[in-house]
């Protein structure tokens, strides 16, 4: 069943890709010109047509001139509505704003500016991703509106909103006009930060008190690594032991010359994603405490450094770690 749903989604994607084949992903700004606006009757449009047919039959049956007149007026009005619905989208300019990276499990916000260069207010517009909830908005005459699409970031890596659908059925609801917006845009999703002691339980759940942040010696907590012979039992992470059955050592303080190495190999063995999450947590912790930290990952070593840019580099590396090339920028 799920496979079927997925397939249908993919089919739809491909159909839209075919329809919009001449519309390459745009950089920043898209203008809705005549050839990229599509229009079809709504369900209400078909109902209206049916009612017109009944009216026409009544007019013929009673040979009622005014009934003919009104039926024809409404028919012409309905056809005219098609044009006005189309015009409601025509000429709008949509500009994407840069999106901020998020952590997995958070909501990514994609912000667009919709600009209306014409002299009439565009109303009843909706913007949505292929499977998201539509966001309603209006754009005043010679004005612009910010529209924010919230997309749940479920997995780390790159999140693309894909094709967007800008649509509306104003002014009569008989037709819906829409356009596919395809921006070349993405946002990076960092791994979800996961403290060591909140790792998925393997054995019984520990209902212990809140995690101690500092060691009795007063030194700052700096990370966790696997147990090595010779480590002090005072630094054993007992809660992690209870949960995982493995021995971990909490690291504290300026371990070597004011620098911390956040080392992949020191992480408890286990699921790749969980280990990345733990690493992410450690990066955030280190940054929060203003430490100089370095990142040691398989195939990469980032020299210890401080600052936002360094943290971002680390997080970006974690976000894309071991993902196929096309999933990363």
């Amino acid at each position, binding site marked *: 069943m799920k496979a079927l749903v997925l397939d249908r989604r993919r089919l739809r994607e491909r159909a839209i890709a075919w329809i919009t084949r001449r519309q390459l992903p745009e950089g920043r700004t898209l203008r809705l010109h005549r050839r990229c606006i599509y229009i079809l009757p709504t*369900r*209400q449009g078909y*109902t*209206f047509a049916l*009612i017109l047919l*009944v*009216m026409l*039959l*009544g*007019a*013929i*049956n*009673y*040979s*009622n*001139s*005014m*009934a*003919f*007149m*009104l*039926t*024809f*007026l*409404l*028919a*012409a*009005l309905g*056809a*005219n*509505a098609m*044009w*006005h619905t189309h*015009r409601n989208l025509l*000429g709008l300019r949509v500009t994407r704003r840069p999106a901020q990276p998020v952590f997995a499990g958070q909501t990514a916000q994609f912000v667009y500016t919709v600009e209306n260069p*014409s002299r009439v*207010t565009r*109303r*009843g*517009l*909706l913007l949505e991703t292929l499977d998201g*909830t*539509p966001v*309603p*908005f*209006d754009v005043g005459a010679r004005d612009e509106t910010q529209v924010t699409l919230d997309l749940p970031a479920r997995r780390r890596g790159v999140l693309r909103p894909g094709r967007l659908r800008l649509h*509306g*059925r*104003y*002014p*009569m*609801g008989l037709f819906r006009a829409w356009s596919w917006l395809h921006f070349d845009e993405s946002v990076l999703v960092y791994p979800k930060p996961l403290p060591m002691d909140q790792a998925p339980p393997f054995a019984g759940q520990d209902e212990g008190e809140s995690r101690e942040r500092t060691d009795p010696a007063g030194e700052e907590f700096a990370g966790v690594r696997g147990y090595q012979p010779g480590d002090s039992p005072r630094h054993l992470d007992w809660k992690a032991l209870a949960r995982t059955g493995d021995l971990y050592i909490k690291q504290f303080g300026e371990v070597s010359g004011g620098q911390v190495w956040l080392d992949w190999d020191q992480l408890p063995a286990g699921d790749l994603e969980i280990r990345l999450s733990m690493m992410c947590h450690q990066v955030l912790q280190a940054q929060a405490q203003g430490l100089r930290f370095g990142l040691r990952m398989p195939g990469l070593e980032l020299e210890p450094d401080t600052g936002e840019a360094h943290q971002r580099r680390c997080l970006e590396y974690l976000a894309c770690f071991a993902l196929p090339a096309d999933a990363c920028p």
Partner: protein
Amino acid sequence: MSVAPMRLEDRLPARSGALLWVIAAIGVAIVPHLFNQPVWVVLTTVLALAWRGGVHLGRLPMPSRWILVLLTILMTGLVLGRYGTLFGRDAGVALLVLMTGLKLLETRTYRDAMLVVFLGYFVIITNFFYSQEIPAALYMLVAVFATTAALVRLNAGEGVQPARESFGLAGLMLGQAVPVMIILFLLFPRLPGPLWGMPQDSTTGVTGLSDSMSPGSISELLQSDAPAFRVSFTDEPPAPAQRYWRGPVFAHFDGRTWRAGRETEIDALPLLPDTDGMVTYTLNLEPHERRWLLALDVPVAVPPDARMTEDHYLVADRPVRRLVQYSLASRTDLILEPELSEARRRQALSLPARAAPRAQALAQAWRAQHEEDDTLIQAALRHFNEEPFFYTLSPPRLERDPVDQFLFEARAGFCEHYASAFVVLMRAAGIPARVVTGYQGGEYNRLGNYLLVRQSDAHAWAEVWLEGRGWVRVDPTAAVAPERIEQGIRIALSGDLGAPDFIRRSLDWGMVRLQWELWRDSIDYYWSGWVLAFGPERQEELLERLGLGRLDWRGMITLMVVLIGAVVLVFAAVFLWRNRLPVADPLAVVYRRFCRRLARAGLTRAPHEPPMDFARRIARERPDLAEPVAAFTREYVALRYGAGPDPERFGQLRGLLRRINP
């Protein structure tokens, strides 16, 4: 019961109060049904509208499903009780109006509200099944406008639309729809209705001549000043005394009631277009639910879809259910039926054996005195004229033998009494005779150049058959009340207290009212002729007048599509022109034009050549052009690199360009 979250697009826009607009529009649409439906139908619906309005404003709760089901059953029952059916025009409209109100009471979503708006359009159209007059049409235009504005608002989304914008857009869209409406109205292939059985109640209170005549049947029509038909003549209208409009002819008498014989079809009479007695005209006949067509005495042409009967009146193939227009020719100088067959003579002489014995005796006495038919007829008319006969709308009731009682006791009556008695007397005297019903007279509307004949102009007269002269019209009413024929029914009855109000009132009012009535009726005349009577026949006529000849339905549809396409193209062109992209750099355009102009003279600017250098080169090669080219280039450079956009100097630049003619 779990309520699934409503999709955004199904939600009713709450803040803009679109639903209140829908409620108001429905209110506007149902009000005219107060005239056509029992008051409770409209009142119940208004209450439902008010209730839903109260819900919207948060004052009232939404009715529960049970209440709605109960109300639906109750209303259906009431309609069934009132009309005895749920079908047909009146019951159907009552149900539609009531159910629109009830639908509104359960309206929670956008989809429901849209359906209510569509029902509103339907309610508007049903009003036309009751009245198609101009005031009704204007009111319905307002109703359509209001409903469309509500529809626009309903679709405007969550933002609050200013009322002016809702109305403005509705008006704009309706206005743009008008040309296409006119094309569709004129060219959409019309079928002669009805498609299915016409419900009995579809035409209410239609008055007109009846298919029989008994005492009182015509005086009933006198109560109505509704128009019967209107006539516009190709040339001069005939004199008032000649305005006899021929309707059904009655030859069968049972002692009280006159009836028509079989409607045997005969050929149209010879037209002889050059003779003096020929009158051609166009007649707009109001619907009267019967098949005969009125015509000036005696019609010689037969309109399409109609026949001429043996008694020389016109019968249409179908009852006249809507206003019809037909062109006719009549002749006043015709000899009708020069030879009377034996069977028809017998028919035109037959009298029930025991009917009107005193009248029969009187006629036989006259016959004994006058050998000539002519003198006998004169004697009979003299009898009506000299004996104390009165012309009145309120004659005493005639019971046993109406003819004898009228002739010898009451001596007061209306045209049908005189015509009936006269024909009985003639038949008793051995002269073939029959009753003709129709209308006599009419008011001439100088404004619209047509003759208006009202129901109150209904009349009955006699025809006698004379050797060598055929059927000759004799109007015994003229012998009693000549002013009826000369001046019309209003004058004739002005002293009669039994006359309807409108007849007496019309004499009191002065010229102002007369003028106003002329205007109003002229407008009605064109309205009914060009709009209400527009059917298959008018359509054909119009196409022929446009020089398109006879188009079949395929031709009409093609023409219709082409014309609509043309309208759409015009609109598109106007739109594109208004929204054309501004020229990116008008200055560059002018300079390019300058270069093209010189290039034609062999002076091509090299791509790398700056304007000033180019101008200098031209001055060398073509000294004659030096001055204007230098002036142009100076101005161009000044505008390009110096003063910003200056429309006035830009115009000067164009002027300078025009001076360069290599």
